[in-house]
């Protein structure tokens, strides 16, 4: 009798405990990551989520496809060259996969990786820009190259060198400007800059008793930028240069240039 009572009291307890335990097990099982081979030498490993990805022999769209990696297969990413990723399959085969196909693969955490894609986001977050422009500097052709670094979204520092090919002399200059781009998130945006630099005027060797002048210079610039797409920006700018030749003489030059730059 006492045994029966003991069993009767214990039974509901057991019946209650079992579903609770099973619930905890189920939660633990869903949290555990699915089995994967151990990762090697710090290279990123992704899993194919599409039915298959195509593996080519070289980093270009014309190279032949010699291999495919099927769904749930793991790929190790070795290196990236422009938009192509060199991967190694589990079987040890190496080849190149393009970025569009890589974007649909999953990382070890089970999430899609965002591979570097030149979208508007990249344009908005651009830091370094290299560019060149051609134009007119006081009616002579000028060639200008610049590098700019976006310190914040609105302010940038730009260094430029320029070369003017005149009929009787050549002028070369360098400048460092502070640029303000208040509408940096627009595709077509104006920008303003002020800066200082040095300007050097070298007359042609064939001229007699011509003097080379080397002086400090200040400049003010206003320009327009247009994001062409991918990594390229077109630019037009107007600059006023004031060359401080001597204590009581300043020369003014006006330059208009149009050019192209790329950012990364």
């Amino acid at each position: 009798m006492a045994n029966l009572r003991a069993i009767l009291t214990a039974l509901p307890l057991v019946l209650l405990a079992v579903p609770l335990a099973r619930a905890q097990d189920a939660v633990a099982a869903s949290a555990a990551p699915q089995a994967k081979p151990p990762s090697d030498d710090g290279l990123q490993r992704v899993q194919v989520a599409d039915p298959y990805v195509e593996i080519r022999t070289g980093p270009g769209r014309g190279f032949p496809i010699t291999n495919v990696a099927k769904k749930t297969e793991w790929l190790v990413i070795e290196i990236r060259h422009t938009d192509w990723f060199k991967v190694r399959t589990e079987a040890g085969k190496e080849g190149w996969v393009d970025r569009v196909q890589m974007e649909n693969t999953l990382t070890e955490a089970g999430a899609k990786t965002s591979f570097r894609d030149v979208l508007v986001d990249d344009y908005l977050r651009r830091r370094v820009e290299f560019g060149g422009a051609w134009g007119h500097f006081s009616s002579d052709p000028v060639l200008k190259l610049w590098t700019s670094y976006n310190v914040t979204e609105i302010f940038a520092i730009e260094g430029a060198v320029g070369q003017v090919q005149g009929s009787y002399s050549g002028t070369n200059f360098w400048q460092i400007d502070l640029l303000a781009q208040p509408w940096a998130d627009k595709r077509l945006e104006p920008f303003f800059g002020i800066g200082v630099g040095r300007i050097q005027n070298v007359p042609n060797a064939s001229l007699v008793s011509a003097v080379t002048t080397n002086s400090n210079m200040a400049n003010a610039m206003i320009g327009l930028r247009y994001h062409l797409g991918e990594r390229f920006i077109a630019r037009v700018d107007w600059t006023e240069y004031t060359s401080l030749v001597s204590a009581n003489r300043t020369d003014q030059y006006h330059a208009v240039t149009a050019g192209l730059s790329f950012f990364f």
Partner: protein
Amino acid sequence: MRSLPFASALFVPALAGMFFVGAVRADDTQVIEPEVARRDVQVTHIPSNDVEMGLFTGTYDTQNFGTNLVGGLRLGYHITEDVFAEAVYGQTKVSDQDFRLILPGGIFPQPHETLRYYDVSAGYNVLPGEVFIGRTHAKVSAVYLIGGVGITKFDGANHETVNVGTGMRVFLADWVSLQVDARDHFLSLNLLGQRQETQNLELTAGVTFFF
């Protein structure tokens, strides 16, 4: 002893209640708190080799003056699989020996002048592909067209130069390539009082490293 069944009857719900008491929150929205182990996700940096740096040497023909050895450095960035940008610095010697035979004093202050050029060019891989060496080796290659602008420092003055060229690059491995380049530099010189458009042809071969 009669109280025992009653106590045991209460014992079971009480014990069951203890299982739940830790799980029920004040607002009673969640019955069970899941125990999920937090995973550390480390996003690995994928190495890239879009930047190239190289050396080259070859011949540079200065119009009217003769051909001489040229050497230089190359720095470039591959933007897409088709387009790349390249900055080049090269140096060569120009001699006016031929003129000194006819014109006493020559044209330059010294018999040999150094010519230096810098240029920035944009290149386009028109024919990417593979080249085959023997039976078992295939190397990635690209024939490209390149054009750009720059400066030629010569005879004490800077001359604006436009360069147009073509070349071929063969990748020995992912990180190194051999490059053969033919360029034509267009510039205008004013050495003897008359402005003249000159073309300087350059043919070089070099090694380029990608990192």
